[in-house]
């Protein structure tokens, strides 16, 4: 039985997709991740796709769904590590990945998540931001 591991790192969940996913596995990851956001109270999700040799419309839709669901659950999603050939192909395929934040690598993705989290907190507690 295949399963994509979800790791907890501080306030974020980290997923590194290392296998060529069949469609059911992609749907399962979407469901598992949504459940983990709720059970862990995570504020951020980082998805590393640097091992993926292609992103087709099905996987693209899964990434957009995860971003949309996590946003509803008050968490930010950042997709990191897209290969250049994958990016070129995605654009030609016509996939826009609306609502999905991206970063070049895991370090920059974590930076982006932290910035978004701080902006979010200062928005909800302006007094805290001035301290």
């Amino acid at each position, binding site marked *: 039985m295949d399963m994509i591991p979800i790791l907890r790192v501080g306030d974020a969940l980290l997923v590194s997709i290392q296998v*060529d*996913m*069949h*469609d*059911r596995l992609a749907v399962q990851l979407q469901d598992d991740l949504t459940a983990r956001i709720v059970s862990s109270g995570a504020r951020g999700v980082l998805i590393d796709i640097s091992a993926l*040799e*292609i*992103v*087709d*419309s*099905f996987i*693209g*839709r899964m990434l957009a769904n995860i971003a949309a669901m996590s946003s509803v659950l008050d968490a930010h999603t950042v997709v990191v590590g897209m*290969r*250049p*050939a*994958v990016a*070129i*192909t995605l654009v*030609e*395929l*016509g*996939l826009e990945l609306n609502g999905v934040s991206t970063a070049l690598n895991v370090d920059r993705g974590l930076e982006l998540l932290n910035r978004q989290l701080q902006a979010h907190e200062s928005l909800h507690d302006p007094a805290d931001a001035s301290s």
Partner: protein
Amino acid sequence: MQVRRDEVAQLRSSEDIVHVRQKVRAWAIEIGFGLVDQTKIVTAASELARNTVTYGGGGTLQLRWLVQDAGRQGLRLDFTDEGPGIADLKRALTDGFTTGSGLGLGLSGSRRLMNDFEIDSAPGKGTRVSVARWKP
């Protein structure tokens, strides 16, 4: 035009789509396509294979390594199913049109990713999509 090699792969399940991606990648590497071309071909194959499984109720992929008389090499992929067929081909080739739950990019997107694109379908007659990409 010569066929240097051909092979038929079955498309019944979502695991078969993964196998087809891997097989098409291996062929594209052997023919000598660059990384970006490999990625485009495999992505198009994944879209069309999923259409065959999801909408066609399963079918086959025939791979052909082609050599033109002038020596130019290419990879042709023929996806065939005996499913319900497509009533309105023109709409089916439009970005965003879908009768299912997908994004409607499979046909229109793979057409952009490949050099040659042909589709043959009618209600009750199944569908055959033939695509090819040529080495620069």
